[in-house]
């Protein structure tokens, strides 16, 4: 059993990486009051930009990830101009961004169909990788997975321990009050939204250049939406987001190891599991209205103009 479980748990960390990046980005944006339903679209745009940069420059994932971040940020900028500067409906703008991202990535991706990339070798953390069992699970991962954990630590620290974190949260809870004491609400929301875009872009580029380094149309496959659901599940708390991402990483990876673990279900039904789990988890967390109300950024989704 153990020899089957080690690859499952190790794979869980990798499968969770795109959810961690995209989820953290969305979490920060939502803490400032901006709900961006365009995560799926930004991830797809990041995925194709990253893939194109990696393939055309020959630089692999090292070129792909920054390109994905920039592309995701540009996509978020379009959303921000519409929903923040022009106060358009955030839900509709996010949806538009997703539809646009699906179209744009398919359009550009036509060039790259069935191209493949070298990917990234796992990086062993010296010393730690030799710990029995745990070493193979935790310290034999691709570098981006470690980067995801570092990003988590930074976001946690900024939101929890710094003045910047306090300002971000203030803008989300009470934009009028934040404005009255002189904080540039719109500029701060722009910053958080662009950060969310960059993170979604990295998540997408990770998928296309590291996780499964070949181009497949619509390869993000709903992970952007799962990331949004994870933010609700996490009640806007980064630590719970990390746990949720691992949980979903585990459910995602299960389908590839089901046979070894003695689960006899058709592959298509196993592939549907993460989406089913998302519904279940949303129901479990949303039924407690008080818990949600307590943690929900008070101005979430409401357009604000000075």
């Amino acid at each position, binding site marked *: 059993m153990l020899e089957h479980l080690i690859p499952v748990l190790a794979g869980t960390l990798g499968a969770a990486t795109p959810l961690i990046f995209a989820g953290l980005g969305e979490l920060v944006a939502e803490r400032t009051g901006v709900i961006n339903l365009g995560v799926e679209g930004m991830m797809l745009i990041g995925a194709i930009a990253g893939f194109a940069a990696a393939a055309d420059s020959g630089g692999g994932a090292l070129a792909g990830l920054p390109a994905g971040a920039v592309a995701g940020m540009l996509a978020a900028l379009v959303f921000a101009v*519409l929903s923040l500067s022009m106060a358009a409906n955030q839900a509709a*703008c996010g949806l538009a961004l997703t539809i646009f991202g*699906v179209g744009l990535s398919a*359009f550009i991706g036509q060039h790259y169909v069935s191209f493949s990339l070298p990917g990234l070798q796992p990086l062993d953390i010296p010393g730690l990788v030799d710990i029995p069992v745990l070493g193979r699970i935790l310290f034999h991962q691709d570098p981006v997975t470690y980067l995801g954990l570092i990003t988590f630590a930074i976001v946690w620290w900024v939101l929890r321990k710094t003045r910047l974190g306090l300002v971000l949260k203030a803008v989300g809870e009470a934009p009028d009050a934040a404005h009255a004491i002189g904080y540039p609400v719109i500029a701060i929301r722009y910053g958080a939204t662009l950060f969310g875009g960059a993170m979604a872009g990295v998540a997408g580029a990770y998928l296309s250049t590291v996780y499964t380094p070949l181009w497949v149309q619509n390869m993000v496959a709903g992970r952007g939406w799962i990331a949004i659901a994870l933010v609700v599940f996490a009640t806007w708390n980064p630590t719970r987001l990390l746990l949720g991402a691992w949980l979903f990483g585990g459910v995602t990876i299960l389908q590839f190891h089901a046979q070894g673990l003695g689960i006899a279900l058709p592959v298509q039904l196993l592939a549907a599991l993460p989406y089913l789990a998302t*519904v279940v988890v*949303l*129901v479990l967390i949303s*039924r407690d209205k008080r818990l949600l109300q307590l943690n929900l950024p008070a101005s979430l989704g409401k357009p604000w*103009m000075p």
Partner: protein
Amino acid sequence: MPLLEPRPTPSARMRLLSPLIAIGLTLAVGSLLFLSLGKNPVEAFTVFFIQPLSSGNGWSELMVKAGPLILIAQGLAIGFRARIYNIGAEGQLIVGALAGGGVAIAFDGVDAWWVLPLMVVAGAIGGALWGAVPALLKTRFNAEETLTTLMLTYIASFTLSYMVNGPWRDPEGMNFPQSIMFGDPALFSPWFEGMRVNASILIATVASIAFWIFTSRSFLAYQLTVGGLAPAAARYAGFSAQRTVWVSLVLSGLTAGIAGVGEVAGPVGQLNLNISPGYGFAAIIVAYLGRLNAVGIVLAGLLMALLYLGGEAAQVALQLPAAITGLFQGMLLFFLLGADVFVDYRLKPRPKPAYA
């Protein structure tokens, strides 16, 4: 310094102009895109918008594509008026197709008039049930319908994949993921030799008239709209928020389900993995472009159908990827949302310099 200021009252003129502005801007950016791809924009737009309509078959195809788009969008618009965002019509379409297709497979070889009507009813029920799930989750457990409807779309699409790979796979289909081809009693018969247009466009037409009457005449539709515009007022008047959710999601699931049957009993003729080129998502744009109005939706549906046809024509004539249709769809919605801002806001006049 904000550039916009709220209008005293929303501009009715802008509400009607905004779709036209969005179409104009999409064409303008589209021209730049064609230029950058080394294509002559005039030639490209001819291929996109004129060529598909220069033959009888083109008009037939326009109806084939407009039918499901209009039907789904009419259902979605009811919910959108009430601010219930069903974005999983694609999944409800798939479940409708599965239910209708299941009937066709079960009664394969039965030559009776009732097979096709039974398929339509089964599809309507299937789609409505798939819409009822998020309604239940929203009313009972407070779960956001945007996320649940979309997750259910993925689940529906994997279920379809399972059915055509497993229990319903055509034994003589050389292992392709597809069901048997349906027999004539399970198909809408084409109206003209060599063209695909069939009676399912009538369903969309009848539905459009029914929705027009429903939205302009019924008290229930009025309650839904008030619930969307002013939830507090609706609560005060005693309109049930729960009923709004149920009606919105079940009704839009029902129309999407029927559209799904229209596909499998029409142009597709079987269950396979390509029963819809994203009609459920494109219908969201159709609903907004049509101003959530039954007549507007018919016009917007025809335009969106033309965009699909244009994409196919551009693939053949200009060697452009058919995905360009998706790109245009996304741009159209963006520009529409941008232009819609000016329904409620206007540009702020520059402050006059103050003289001391």
